[in-house]
């Protein structure tokens, strides 16, 4: 590992920072498919970190471990000062309410209207006070993503980009402290992609949320990334700002920026 490029452990800008997510020595394999091997990752408050990596390198697996959908084989993942691997039931639900997750395939509920899709996480997480103004909140979030008119439509009636934006709205509606984006801009036209990127930035600034973003879209990465972690061979291979990695001389890192 001596070929590693220079790593700046903390972002240059707004420090001193509190750590909201720390994964250390995470191992995860499916049978003989060793996906994560000794993966380390930190996320600070207010920071947008992009995870970059080849398809199938285990990016989605990692953020699923972060939200507790998958259990790592080894290692610890501390989210908002709680070790998610040891949480169960209600405690886990409470933590999950503070962590948003945008699924790669949107995961909108086919059998529900847009409104019900957005209400679902609100109704399910027993968050006091949120229940009462759910109607106006749904309206507001939909307006934020520019799709107020789709409120009574079914997901099947929406285009891919619209679905992505509804999924984003559903992630944002609970006002999470950390948001995990799994490829938020894939399959979108450049204009919409930029809008989504801007939306992500705006949300981050407005509510001081932190975000982990998985993306292959260089425009998006350039726009939102405070820091980039390159996942390669199950490890955090490189770590730095966009400019730092772009100028890296490492062969593997260079492949991603050509």
């Amino acid at each position, binding site marked *: 590992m001596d070929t590693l490029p220079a790593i700046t452990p903390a972002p240059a800008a707004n420090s001193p920072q509190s750590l909201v997510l720390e994964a250390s020595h995470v191992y995860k394999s499916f049978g003989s498919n060793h996906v994560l091997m000794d993966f380390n990752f930190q996320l600070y408050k207010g920071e947008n970190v992009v995870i970059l990596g080849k398809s199938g390198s285990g990016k989605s697996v990692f953020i699923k471990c972060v939200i507790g*959908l998958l259990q790592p084989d080894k290692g610890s993942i501390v989210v908002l000062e709680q070790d998610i691997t040891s949480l169960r039931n209600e405690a886990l639900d409470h933590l999950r309410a503070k962590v948003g997750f945008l699924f790669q395939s949107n995961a909108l509920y086919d059998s529900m209207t847009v409104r019900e899709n957005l209400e679902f996480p609100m109704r399910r997480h027993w968050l006091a006070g949120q229940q009462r103004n759910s109607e106006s909140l749904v309206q507001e979030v939909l307006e934020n993503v520019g799709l107020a008119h789709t409120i009574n439509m079914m997901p099947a009636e929406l285009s891919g980009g619209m679905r992505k934006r509804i999924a984003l709205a559903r992630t944002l509606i609970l006002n999470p402290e950390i948001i995990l984006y799994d490829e938020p801009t894939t399959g979108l036209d450049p204009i919409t992609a930029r809008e989504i990127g801007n939306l992500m930035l705006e949300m981050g600034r407005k509510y001081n949320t932190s975000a982990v973003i998985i993306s292959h879209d260089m425009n998006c990465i350039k726009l939102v990334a405070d820091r980039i972690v390159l996942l390669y061979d199950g490890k955090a291979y490189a770590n730095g700002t966009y400019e730092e990695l772009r100028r890296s001389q490492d062969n593997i890192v260079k492949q991603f920026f050509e």
Partner: protein
Amino acid sequence: MTLNKPWADFLDELGGIARFATRFFAQVFRPRYEGAELLRQCFLIGNLSLPLVGLTSFIMGLVLTMQLRPSMVEYGVESQIPAMVAIAVVREIGPVIIALIFAGKIGSSIGAELGSMKVTEQIDAMEVSGTNPFKYLVVTRVLATTLMLPVLVLIGDSIMLFGSFIGVNIYTVTSFPLYISQAMDSLTFQEFLPAILKTFFFGFAVGIIGCYKGFHTSRGTEGVGRAANSAVVVSSVWIFILDLLAVQITDLLGYN
């Protein structure tokens, strides 16, 4: 261990279904209860199956009567048609035929729905939204199939008997009260109650197998089709196996 593959697969699936069912029982009595979703599923599974069940039941009753009639007339026991149809319908044909139709309609739709939810990560999305997907999706559906199939069978049996009544009246004139009293006089509680009881098990089998298949859909959309298809096949086979068990148990208990 040199089990050949079909056997290994079969046992693997059997174990999987058994564990799935255990998980169901572990969760069904523990809060939180998904009451609203249960009602919604009962509506979707029960009410919306009624037209199909009603139509097939009516035709079944009519055809059964018309097919039986010639031999009954030949033996000079034409007047026994209502009794015979009633016994056949209430004890066996009603429960099994309706359960099979139910498996075809509901088993496949549960398998396909949960399967596509699985492959498009909707189940994961539910879980991160503070919902136990097993409770929200599986427990509600299995309870709904278990509770609704007996209701469908009760209604379907009645419609079959009505179809048979029409069938009898094609050839002769029999009043409805006479038909009912002839049909019902031949039945006893020991025949009626086990027949209704077994439909709970049929409903449970359809629900649990449909959900199991959906939940264990392998990635990809063609997996959804496979899940729907095998949900129907496996639950139909299980209906027959349970039927066999039911007749043996009632026999053992002396209710035959």
